[in-house]
């Protein structure tokens, strides 16, 4: 069945490229994973590039999801039908670094004379996509980080006008709100990105040994022994007290939907949803965003970047690479940073982009109120070993293991600590397996 799919993808790619040969401009393929509104915006961005071009044309093909973009690229690479440029999400970074199938961004920029000042990227973003030696192998594109979304009216019921800064204060507020008649203080799902990854970064806690995996493929997960375990036990308590609620698509409403229709007073979500919340909030919903709360005994550190970066693939013609280089140049201009961050709620990836947006009054616009907090959060401290990023093999699968165990714990089938220990043990098996599959290779 797998080969049938690979064949089908290859056939689709063939059809796609042969139909597009009539015109004069040099074409190259650019695959992306974003879907829905965000996918449409990317398509527009692609069109902006093509309109500004005489010589090259990017053929942008949506793959129907981040994970699909990665899977399809791998399948296409195996049958030598892969695109020149592909958008790969944060969790796929390790696979691409070890693949031998990519053209490292720093080398590519040098070979095709793209003038990029690598130190211009926000360190929190650059480090996530850089090798352990600090070389960038992909071009950061759509980037985000997590924020607390809070309903000001719900907080007003307990006489507060400010978002909570510590986790203790937040939980305290939630319990008071319950007493004041707020039906759902906090809605969460099983996504590990907010509670595990972002939480560990801002508390400067390790998720795995070897500097979260940057130091080598033999890293081991340790999240079950850190404050994260207490955090999850606290969530479970909130759930049992009826203060918090689980909101997934299967329940009927995602966390964002439960926030925009006013059901849940707070949720943790990506800044990328800032625009979505703004445009889908029920009329009169009085809301704001704040940086993720931190336990009061901890010093706040920078949060992690989420989103995706653009990878250049091996094995393409010189002309296609020139096209890709033109695309990278185009995307890195401050004007495009402004356009892209206005169209959706992703943050600018470079300091120049951020300054340019500031100068143009982007952050003064009430529609964008609070989005600057994402930059504040991301640059709060210089990245430490724990807040630099996560470089673990097969991280998608590790997320899935943790998710399953969290499901078991939150639905009361297992004790939280037992579940987390089990998740760590199973994730370690995944890492050992990954190490074996990539025997003889070392992380760059």
């Amino acid at each position, binding site marked *: 069945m*797998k080969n049938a799919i690979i064949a089908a993808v290859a056939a689709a790619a063939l059809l796609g490229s042969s139909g597009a040969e009539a015109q004069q401009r040099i074409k190259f393929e650019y695959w992306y994973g974003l879907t829905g509104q965000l996918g449409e915006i990317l398509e527009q961005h692609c069109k902006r590039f093509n309109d500004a071009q005489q010589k090259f044309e990017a053929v942008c093909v949506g793959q129907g999801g981040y994970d699909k973009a990665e899977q399809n690229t791998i399948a296409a690479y195996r049958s030598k039908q892969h695109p020149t440029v592909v958008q790969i999400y944060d969790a796929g970074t390790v696979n691409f670094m070890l693949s031998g199938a990519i053209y490292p961004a720093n080398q590519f920029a040098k070979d095709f004379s793209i003038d990029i000042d690598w130190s211009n990227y926000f360190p929190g973003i650059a480090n996530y996509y850089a090798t352990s030696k600090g070389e960038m192998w992909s071009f950061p594109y759509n980037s985000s980080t997590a924020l607390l979304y809070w309903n000001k009216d719900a907080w007003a019921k307990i006489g507060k006008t400010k978002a909570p800064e510590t986790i203790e204060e937040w939980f305290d507020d939630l319990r008071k709100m319950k007493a004041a008649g707020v039906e759902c203080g906090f809605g969460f799902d099983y996504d590990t990105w907010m509670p595990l990854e972002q939480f560990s970064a801002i508390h400067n806690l390790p998720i795995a040994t070897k500097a979260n995996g940057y130091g080598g493929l033999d890293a081991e997960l340790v999240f079950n022994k850190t404050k994260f375990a207490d955090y999850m036990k606290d969530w479970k308590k909130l759930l049992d007290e009826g203060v918090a609620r689980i909101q997934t698509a299967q329940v009927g409403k995602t966390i964002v939907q439960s926030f925009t229709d006013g059901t849940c007073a707070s949720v943790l979500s990506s800044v990328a949803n800032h625009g979505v919340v703004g445009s889908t909030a029920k009329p009169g919903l009085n809301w704001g965003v704040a940086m993720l709360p931190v336990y009061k005994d901890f010093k706040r550190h920078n949060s992690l970047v989420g989103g995706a970066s653009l990878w250049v693939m091996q094995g393409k013609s010189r002309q296609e690479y020139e096209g890709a280089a033109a695309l990278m140049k185009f995307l890195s201009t401050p004007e495009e940073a402004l356009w892209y961050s206005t169209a959706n709620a992703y943050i600018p990836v470079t300091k120049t982009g951020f300054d340019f947006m500031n100068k143009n009054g982007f952050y003064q616009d009430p529609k964008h109120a609070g989005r600057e907090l994402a930059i504040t959060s991301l640059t709060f401290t210089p990245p430490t070993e724990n807040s630099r990023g996560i470089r673990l093999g097969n991280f998608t699968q590790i997320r899935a293991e943790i998710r399953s165990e969290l499901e078991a714990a939150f639905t009361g089938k297992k004790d939280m600590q037992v579940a987390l220990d089990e998740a760590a043990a199973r994730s370690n098996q995944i890492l050992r397996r990954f190490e074996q599959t990539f025997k003889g290779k070392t992380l760059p």
Partner: protein
Amino acid sequence: MEKRAAFSDLRLAGALIAPQLLLVFVFFYWPAAQAVYWAFTTQPPFGGSNEWVGFQNFEQIFTDRVYWNSVGVSFLFAGLSTALSVGMALLFALFVDRRLTGYRVHRFIYFWPYAVAAPAVGLAFRFIFAPEAGFVSAVNQWVPGLWNPALDGKDALALIVLANSWKMVAYNFIFFLAALQSIPRPLIEAAAMDGAGVLRRARDIQFPLLAPTFFFLLVINVTESFVDSFGIVDITTGGGPARATDLMVYKIYSDGFKGLDYSMAAAQSIVLMGVVIVLTFIQFRYVERRVHYS
């Protein structure tokens, strides 16, 4: 005596079946052979350096509690959804065969669900059975917390069994109806004149004559629930909550395509293929003996 037509020229016969053989080879034997090879090696996502590891992949699968959970769930799912879909289809077919009111319309629309793609079925069931926003959420108004497939594994399993059965009922119905209608009317009429009631006629005349169809559908339904339930699971439950609906075929998908561990997925598909072969063998060996054709 049966009359057989035979090709005198074997080359012509060969040429005629060649395209079909080629298709089977390219889309079944070749990938299957490839999967066997992958199952005994470690295969990096981007291809290239396979390393021979013998039975290690299988050892890892069989010592994994989570894998056994998914085997258990798969058998439960196959048993329940086969029983439900074959049972309901038989009932519907008997009703339509008896020409109850509206049978013409029913005969026509009962088949529709089978024409709906599995992911669409999944999506519809997800919306209808969503515990907070769905149509069925009404039951939670009467008994709070009664129905919640997002939190309760049993509810989630019930949901995918319902969705899969709803789709398969349509298919089974057509076969049962065709079989019922091929039973000579005089047999039924004679029984009726002898005073046999509806149930008696069904038990003594129709059911025995339906045995071959029943057996055929049993094999098809069991096989389908093992290998073709991916779309529904992916859309409705995603294997959750806490792996309560993590069918073998879904685990292959998540390990192989999401986890990019092609070797482990290949080893699992070999096991799944083995299970289906064994089940089909058992059905032919032990169930078919009780079936009388013609």
